[in-house]
């Protein structure tokens, strides 16, 4: 690999943009295709397919065998609510490879002391979220139980096409939330993307178990195609 290609690739990855390196297996020739340029590439269909799946792989083309090395941004998690569940969830998410950010305007909750290794922002979502660049490689979780905090954050996450959006609360709580958000103009399709009650149905009781249920559900959203995803399940947390 030419150092120039490696540098350009690392620059794309730093900026959280997807990119693919195409290597001709016969000649060793290589080129970098940035996601924004994929549509112009001769291998457009293959490259777009691989960016969607996030998986590298060997492909036969009319010009011979090529290897596509796919780089999509590392997934991250943004949470509203510096609460007990978040304290359990943050270290689990870290081990799973996610970068975690917690937003909570309640300064008694949002302290670095309660979340030693995590980015904590003691601000309202309308201030905290826009600079974070929430994107489709971000999972968003609303855990405060407070509509003043969770609702605007959920609206933001849905508009940014997060790969996972989940909200804590019973079916009843969620039904009320859906009504409120509909009133603010969100579509049925958007609201249907919210996982609520949040988490896989594993009978979770403690905050740590609920964190595991949530991380299991996020993993399935990241890794499985929608057809293979576990059914939306009865409440595991309230």
């Amino acid at each position, binding site marked *: *690999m030419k150092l120039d290609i490696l540098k350009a690739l690392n620059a794309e990855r730093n900026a959280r943009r997807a990119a693919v390196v195409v290597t001709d*297996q016969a000649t*060793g020739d290589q080129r970098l295709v940035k996601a924004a340029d994929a549509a112009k590439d001769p291998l457009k269909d293959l490259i777009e397919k691989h960016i969607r799946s996030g998986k*590298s*792989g*060997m492909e036969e083309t009319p010009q011979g065998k090529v*290897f596509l*090395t796919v780089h999509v941004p590392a997934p991250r998690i943004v949470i509203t609510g510096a609460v007990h569940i978040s304290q359990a969830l943050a270290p689990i998410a870290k*081990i799973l490879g996610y970068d975690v950010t917690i937003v909570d305007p309640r300064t008694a909750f949002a302290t670095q002391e309660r979340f030693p290794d995590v980015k904590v922002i003691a601000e309202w979502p309308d201030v905290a979220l826009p600079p974070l660049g929430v994107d489709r490689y971000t999972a968003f979780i609303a855990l405060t139980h407070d509509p003043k905090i969770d609702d605007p954050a959920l609206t933001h996450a849905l508009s940014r096409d997060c790969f996972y959006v989940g909200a804590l609360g019973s079916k009843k709580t969620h039904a009320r939330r859906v009504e409120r958000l509909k009133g603010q103009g969100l579509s049925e399709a958007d609201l249907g993307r919210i996982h609520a009650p949040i988490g896989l149905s594993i009978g979770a009781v403690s905050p740590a178990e609920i964190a595991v249920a949530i991380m299991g559900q996020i993993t399935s959203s990241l890794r499985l195609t929608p057809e293979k995803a576990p059914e939306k399940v009865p409440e595991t947390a309230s």
Partner: protein
Amino acid sequence: MTTLATDDDILKAAEAWRSEGREVALATVVETWGSAPRPVGSNLVIDSEGNFLGSVSGGCVEGAVVTEAIDVIESGKPKTLEFGVADETAWKVGLSCGGTIRVYVEKVD
């Protein structure tokens, strides 16, 4: 947390090592069959001294890849290596899981 090093760290290390003037090769898992320990796209970066970071197999064949990578650094020509139970050398540097992997090794220049 080197055991949890992500591919991010590895490609950044490759750039940093090369920029420092070290001779560097990059190994990438390009194909797998059966139960291979590391997925396609996994990287190992190697320098001419035999230092390495990352993994292509979870430890089973890294030693052999490092040796080949030093050759690639010298010759400048990329190489494709295959490891698996069907391979005779597999008994020496095999994949205990019974899978087969193909690894592309190239110089960073």
